[in-house]
């Protein structure tokens, strides 16, 4: 399973990678520091289907373009690719308003709180298989 992870926190990415290494059949195809980078990466992946993700793991609070900005724009690319990649939010937020807002996006399939655990990764895998 191919995962795209969007987060600006290098320490988190380090931990995430270590966690992926311990989990079978998961591969990170792209790491982006913000929504804008991620959109650009997806555009490139339109021509290079090898790096097209099966699942997107998205943080919310990021500079340049935050998680919400990404969610607002990424539908266009998905329709071009005719592939609706499911999104899982992985954030340190505990703000109810964020949970509620995330629920309004159809593409968001689940909402996880950091730190990342192996159980969460297994759930993400199942979600990716489902869609």
């Amino acid at each position, binding site marked *: 399973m191919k995962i795209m992870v969007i987060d*600006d*926190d*290098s*320490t*988190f990415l*380090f*931990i995430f990678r*270590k*966690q992926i290494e311990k989990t079978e059949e998961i591969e990170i195809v792209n790491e982006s*520091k*913000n929504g804008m*980078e991620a959109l650009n990466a997806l555009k490139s992946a339109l021509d290079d289907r090898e790096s097209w993700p099966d699942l997107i793991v998205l943080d919310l*609070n990021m*500079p*340049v373009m935050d998680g919400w900005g990404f969610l607002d724009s990424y539908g266009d690319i998905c329709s071009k690719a005719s592939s609706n990649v499911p999104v899982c939010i992985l954030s*340190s*937020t*505990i*703000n109810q308003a964020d949970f509620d807002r995330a629920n309004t996006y159809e593409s968001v399939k689940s909402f996880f*709180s*950091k*730190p*990342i*655990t192996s159980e969460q990764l297994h759930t993400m895998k199942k979600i990716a298989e489902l869609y």
Partner: protein
Amino acid sequence: MKHQTKESDQPYLSPYSIRNPNPIITLSACGETIYANAAAKTNVETGDTEGSDGLIPKKIVDTAVFAFANNEELVEIFQLKNQQYSFTFCPDIETNLVHLFATDVTKEVKYQEYCSVISAFSSALLDAHTEEEVAKTIASEAIARLSYVDCVVYLVDRKDHKLKQRAAHGPQNPKTPAGGTTGPSNLRFGEGIVGAAAMEKKTLIIDDVTKDARYVVDDAQRYSEIAVPIIAEGEVIGVIDSEHPEKDFFTKEDAKVLEAIAAISATSIRRSRAMEDSAHTEAKFRSFVDNAFGGLYIHRNREFDYVNERFCEMVGYTAEELLEPDFDMASLIIEPDAAAADAMEARTNGDRSPKSYQLKVKTKNGELRYLAVNTAILSDKNGYFTLGIALDITETIQSRQQLEEVVQSLEKKSDELNEFAHLASHNMRAPVTNLIGLLNHFDYQNPAAPLNAEILEKFGDTVDQLNLTLEEMHQVLRVRAQKSFNYNTVNLQDLVDGIRLRLSKQIKASRFRVVTNFEVENVKYEKSHLENLFMNLISNALTYRRNDGTPYIQIQSSRSGDHIQLEFKDNGLGIDLEKHEKNLFGMYKRFHDNPEGRGVGLYLVKRQLSALGGTISVKSEPNVGSTFTVKLISK
């Protein structure tokens, strides 16, 4: 002269001879001898001579002699035994006789007397304005002229419904105070002859009171009595009462004249009572209006027609000033709110429905007051006018405004605190979750594993980040809590030089230029705020510089009115204001992909400025540069 023998019912006086020094003379009327002289007495067997002096009254004899001497027919009215007679004296020179013919004119004379009394009474009543005066006028102007022995006027008291003595006329009893009253001063309806007349609503003539159980003994025993009720609109409002020491004194004629007086009086009393009532009502109403809790005014033809005391107090002008024809209404009303303006507009367009609105007024001494005004359009003989009721709601409005301010400020504080709590917990949580995540991967079995070194390094970085976050939160809280400030003279160039020194490493590395042009060199201000402002704006320009060309920041100062204007212009990356203007000065808002930016600097700058009444604004264009303009109030 052919006046001859008596006619059946014509009073007739036997011929009186001037020459005969001792003639037989009788005076008869209706077949009865009412006078006879001494000579006649001996010849008259059954003549009732009681009350007679036995002589023809001297005044009659004198008149007969006068008529004979002048050979002239005379007509004179004389009273004999309570009767009035009209005598015709007819001299007969040939026989040396004067023929007398007498006619009883008692009724006619009384009628005339009554007419003159009623006429005089009616005109006297014009000066009587209270029921008391009406009662006195009845006694003094009517009864006194009717030759009654006494008279008392009773009026019904409107409170206890008893008949009360209000006026009396001349009893010959010396015990009675002068002009005072006689008889019982209070009578219930039905009590005594007076009460009976009131109860029965009709005139009562009692010929002999000793035979009437209803009689209430007066100041002196009397024998006949007349009581005439004064009736207005079917209701007894008083009684005119007279008593006489003789039996059978009062006649139907007395009843008629007193009834006439009673009827005239009734009208007068009713009128005076109505006037008293309306004067009383008006006085009550006036006092209510003058002392009303609310301000009252009447406005007519763009002028005040009436203002009560409370209204004067509200607006601080005297009634005289407000009622001046050239009083300037515009100096009173400052700012009609929308509802007031609408109401006034509608009024000028002829709308006469009641209106309610608020007015902001300026009192005479310039104080601001809020009045809640209700107006109604009324009309009288002079046309339409506005009746206004005003309540002073200044205190209510002020306390409401204060309350609103407090609520707003509390809401703002609460929102800010909520936001802060969320941001703080988020910013604390992020590094803490990382610490947990890192520890999850630490290889405890094999401490020397190369991964562990990497994890520890990350652990250190994260702890630093956590510490920094805590430090920022402390700063934010300190800025919020700061209440007192120290104003010191700060030299702007020294300030910039100090910062340049602190950032010298980065400045040199990036060949960044700091250009200054200080029109105002020294500023008296809270020094820590100025340092933070300059540090943030300069380091931001340095951090977000463009690497093509020479990056710079240009700082200027100038005076503008009562504040000092600072301008920070750079040629850096710029900010997409369309997207970010709203969040630019928010907490933990970052716009550039730069790990050093933490989203606290501009937030603090803005808070510190606004704490001292300053502002900050920005103009920016991506890839051209940004200009921050700061306005601050220097001491």
